[in-house]
C-alpha cells in the first residue's frame, strides 16, 4: 500500500469521479430548489430524492471497496498537520456521503411525506412522524449540506495544491486518467524508494 506512485484502483477512481459529479449536482440542486417557487422546484425536488438515494448506495459500495483496497499512503514528507487533515477529511466525507441522504430520508419520514424515486418507486418511512425529529433533522440536513460544500472546496484546494505546488503524486493517485506514473517517479523531493 505504500509503493511509490501507487494510485487508487480504477474502480475507486471511477466511484470517486462519478460521485463527485453526483454530489456537486446534489448540492447545487438542493440550494437551488429551496430558493424558488417556480415550476422547476418540482423538477429539482424530483431529482434530489432519487439522486440522494443513489449517492447513499454508491457511498456504501465505495466504503466497502475502500476497506478492501485501502488507499495509497501519503508522501512521507507531508507535514503531520496536513496528513491529519487528509485523514480526518476522508472520515468526514464518508460520514457526509452516507449521513446526509439518511438524514434527508429520515426528515421526510418524520414529516409524513412520501419518498418517491424515479418510476414511482416508494421508499418506506424510516422514522415515525414527529415535529421535534423533523425540526432536528431539517436543521442537520441544511447545515451539514453547507458544511459538505465547504469541505469539497477545501478538498479541491488541497488536491490542486498537491497537483500544482507540491507535485507529490497525491493528485495523480486519484486523477481520472493515467499520467503514466512519471509525475511521482520524477519528483526530485521524493525520498521514497520504488
Amino acid at each position: 500500500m505504500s509503493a511509490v506512485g501507487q494510485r487508487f484502483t480504477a474502480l475507486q477512481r471511477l466511484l470517486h469521479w462519478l460521485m463527485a459529479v453526483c454530489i456537486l449536482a446534489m448540492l447545487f440542486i438542493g440550494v437551488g430548489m429551496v430558493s424558488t417557487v417556480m415550476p422547476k422546484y418540482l423538477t429539482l425536488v424530483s431529482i434530489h430524492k432519487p439522486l440522494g438515494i443513489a449517492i447513499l448506495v454508491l457511498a456504501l459500495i465505495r466504503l466497502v471497496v475502500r476497506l478492501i483496497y485501502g488507499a495509497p499512503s501519503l508522501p512521507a514528507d507531508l507535514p503531520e498537520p496536513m496528513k491529519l487533515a487528509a485523514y480526518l477529511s476522508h472520515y468526514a466525507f464518508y460520514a457526509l456521503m452516507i449521513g446526509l441522504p439518511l438524514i434527508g430520508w429520515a426528515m421526510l419520514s418524520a414529516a409524513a411525506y412520501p419518498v418517491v424515486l424515479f418510476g414511482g418507486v416508494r421508499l418506506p418511512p424510516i422514522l415515525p412522524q414527529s415535529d421535534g425529529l423533523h425540526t432536528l433533522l431539517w436543521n442537520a440536513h441544511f447545515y451539514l449540506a453547507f458544511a459538505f460544500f465547504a469541505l469539497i472546496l477545501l478538498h479541491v484546494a488541497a488536491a490542486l495544491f498537491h497537483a500544482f505546488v507540491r507535485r507529490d503524486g497525491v493528485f495523480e493517485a486519484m486523477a481520472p486518467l493515467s499520467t503514466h506514473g512519471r509525475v511521482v517517479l520524477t519528483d526530485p523531493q521524493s525520498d521514497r524508494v520504488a
Partner: protein
Amino acid sequence: MPQPVARSAILSLILIAGIVGAAAAIFAYTAGWLSPRRLTPDKMVDALTPPGVDPAGHRRNHAKGICFTGMFEANGAGSALSQAEVFTRGQYPALGRFNLATPDPNAQDPTVRVRGLGLRIATPDGQEWRTAMIDPPFFAVSTPQAFYELLLATASKDPDAMKIFAGAHPEIAAFAAWAKSAPWTGSYAEERFNSLDSFIFVDGSGARHAVRWSLLPDARPVPVSPDDLAKRGPDFLEQDITERVRGGPQRWAMVVTVANPGDPTADPSKAWPEDRRTVAVGTLVVQQIEAERDGPCRDINFDPTVLPAGIETSDDPFPAARSAAYAKSYDRRTAEAQDYPRTASGAKP
C-alpha cells in the same frame, strides 16, 4: 533555482484561490444569495403573515381549521381517466381538514370569505393523493408572482396599492365580484370545494387528460346573510360541522371536469366553460371530526403535488409554488410546536 519555483508556487496558489472562489460564487448564485429579487418560499411565506398576527405553531395560510377522518368511496368511473388506484371501485381511508383561508389561527369564522378543504386519500398500493381545495369557482390571480404581489398590496400602507395591483392584474376584478356577491352558507357541509388548479390524469393506455376536480356537497346550500352569520359566534363553522357529523356522515360527490383542447390549464383564475364533460368518480364520506390541536390532520402538509401514479402536475404554475411554500410553512410551524402545545391527554410520546 528557488526564484522561479516560488513564483510558480504563488501563481498556482492564485489559480487555486480563483477556482475555489468561482465555485463558491456559482454556489451562492444558485442559492439565490446574489438575487435579492428572486421569489423564494421564505418571501412568499413571510408575506402571508400580516402585521399584528402571531402564527407561531400554525399553518401560515388557512391557519384555522378542524380535522376529519372518513372514507373515499370510488365508483370506478374515474379509471377511464386515470390509472391511479384511488379511482378503482372501492373504499379508501381519507383524512382531511376543513379550514378558513386566513393567516390568523384565531380568526372569527364569520369574517373569512374563502373556505377550504384539505384531503389525503391513501390506497393499498402505498400511494397517496393529497389535494387542497377552496370554495371560489376560480382563483384570484393568474400567477404565483401575482399572488405574492397581491399579498404585498394587501399589507401595504399606500392607499393606492390595491388600485395599482388591480391595474396590473385585472383578473382580480372577477374574484372581487365573486367575493362581494356570492352567497355565504352556514356550514362547511354545504360548500362546494374546487381544485382550481389543473392536473393531468394519465389513463391505462397512457393517454393524458387535463382535468380539474371539485367536491359537491350532498347537503343543500342554504344562503345566510353575513349579518346573520356574524351573530353565530367566532367558531360556528367548527361547531356546526362537529354537530352534523355527530348526527351522521356528511358526503360530497367528487366530480372531475375534463378540459377541451385549448382550455386554459395554466391559469386557475380562468374558469372553464360550463358545458365541459364531467365525470363523477366517487364520494367523500366524512365520518368523524377532531379538533386540530391533537388531531390527525395537524401534522399533514396538504401539498397538492403529492400525487399517485396516474395523476401529474400540468403547466399550471401554482402547484409547484404551493408545494414550495407549504413545505416552508410546515418547516416553520413544526419547529414552533411548543407555541401550539398538544393537550396533555392527546400528547404524543
